[in-house]
């Protein structure tokens, strides 16, 4: 086992950024530098680095506080969507790998191909048209989009494992396919699932921002990074910080998760590192 000091730097940098955003989101439940619900027109559109570190918006709300509260929505939506994708996709992928010749194995993979034809935005448009806009729609839309990603990944990895001797011996012991999948296959693909989970987490943050920007995600008064950008759009010429602050928050959060994912992949799957470096 490698010592902590020999872990790739990307894990520390990415991990620190991710932890920072998670902490900021959690902290916002009990404390923010200023109130984000009140309107204080007297201090509207203050530039950054004055009384307010990141400045204020057109209602005089503190942008740092809004970014902190917005982090809740962005991170929660993306995280739950990863949960949906893993929770449904992995069992589907494992089942398809356990009985590759069964008719439903083929059906599962065809279904996955089909879901790929529905980008998260299109799913969100459909759900919103029927049920109205909410952060929940964004979760469902991004979650559905994640399912085939995890199903394909786990099927591919599991198929290779089913050829190995230790699976054969488990079979000889009389274990059922279900038990083998749960006890032997799943622990062996957990690594790549975690790495993919980090990547989908970061893609989820990007997707959530896009959805709430066009009004298909979190609704006011709930601040979210995408909505902050939508509000900033008309004011960007005279108050560019309104667009810069939430945008940089998105970039930093996504970058942090991507670095963390890269680092984790290097540690967990050294063969890939060989190829990338």
């Amino acid at each position: 086992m490698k010592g902590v000091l020999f872990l790739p730097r990307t894990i520390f940098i990415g991990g620190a950024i991710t932890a920072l955003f998670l902490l900021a989101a959690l902290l916002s439940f009990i404390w923010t530098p200023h109130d984000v619900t009140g309107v204080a027109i007297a201090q509207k559109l203050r530039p950054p680095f004055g009384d307010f570190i990141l400045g204020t918006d057109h209602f005089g709300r503190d942008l740092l506080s809004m970014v902190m509260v917005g982090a809740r929505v962005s991170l929660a939506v993306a995280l739950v969507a990863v949960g949906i994708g893993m929770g449904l996709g992995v069992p589907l992928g494992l089942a398809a790998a356990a009985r590759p010749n069964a008719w439903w194995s083929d059906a599962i993979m065809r279904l996955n191909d089909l879901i790929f034809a529905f980008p998260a935005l299109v799913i969100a448009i459909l759900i919103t048209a029927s049920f109205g806009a909410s952060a929940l729609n964004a979760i469902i839309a991004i979650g559905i989009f994640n399912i085939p990603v995890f199903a394909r990944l786990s099927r591919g990895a599991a198929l290779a494992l089913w050829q190995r001797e230790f699976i054969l011996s488990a079979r000889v012991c009389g274990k059922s396919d279900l038990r083998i999948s749960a006890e032997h296959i799943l622990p062996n693909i957990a690594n790549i699932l975690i790495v993919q989970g980090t990547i989908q987490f970061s893609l989820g943050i990007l997707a959530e921002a896009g959805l709430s920007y066009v009004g298909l995600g979190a609704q006011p008064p709930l601040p979210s990074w995408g909505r902050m950008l939508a509000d900033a759009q008309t004011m960007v010429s005279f108050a560019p910080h309104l667009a810069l602050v939430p945008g940089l928050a998105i970039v930093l959060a996504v970058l942090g998760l991507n670095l963390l994912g890269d680092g984790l992949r290097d540690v967990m799957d050294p063969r890939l590192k060989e190829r990338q470096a």
Partner: protein
Amino acid sequence: MIQFVMRRFLSLIAALAVSSVVIFLVIEVAPGDPASFMLGINAQPDTVAALRAELGLDQPKLQRYVSWVLGMLQGDFGISYTYRAPVGQMIADRLWVSLPLAIYALALSTLIAIPVGAYAAARRGRAGDMMVMGATQLGVAVPNFWFAMLLVLMFAIKLQWFSAGGFPGWEAGLGQGIMALSLPAIALALPQAAILARIMRSALLDVLGEDYMRTARAKGLSRPRAIWRHGMRNAMIPVLTILGLQFSFLLAGAIIIEQVFYLPGLGRLVFQAITQRDLIVVESVVMLLVFTVIMVNFLVDLAYLWVDPRLRGDG
């Protein structure tokens, strides 16, 4: 080869059929009646009933599904609930903005990504490669609509090289139209190019380690020529796959970016339709988007045949 094409064609038809059922059902469960929504709360029940009959809403679900699909096959997408205009015409008008935008962006991102990815692979581990990898790491983290806002701030508001938004229409001339779509296309293309360049780089690195590359060098080809003649073509398969998958992101991205530049494309149409509960427009636009994605992936599969002659032989 014919078998391969036929099998792909059949699954294309199946995918379109299943998608249309899913889209129809999701829209169908929407609460509220479009006819009473159109006429407002003070409408007489018999007026509502008459409008329902006119829109065909009083027919059974199955019949409405069949006539929706048959209509689309003949280019008839129904009548918009709000504008009382043919949906097909409304979509066609908007498509003249969204489709050129998506294709423009696709072309730009491919033109940037393939040389950049190939350059990084050829200089693997050196300064040039590091810079490319750093830039692409940043590129994949940038939301394209935010990047679009920054471009507007820089090139439209500060430098005033481009207009900040709007579309003069193709009647105003090809140059004007392309000019109006340039900033949106760049905003869409650069983040996509970052992903594609990374794929190109790793695909080419995989290929560079192959025996046939050594053979090509051994028979006297220079390194650039060997990469060009033998490496590129073999690296194109994963690149094509990602290109096909990316098209759906590009289309979705175009719809979002249209909002930044106030472009009268499909995005504007569909978001307006959602607020006005013009469900038939939503239904048709979504079907069109899904159709495009499925179709592009079908074409990508056919492109494999062209790139990889081994696939042409059997199955």
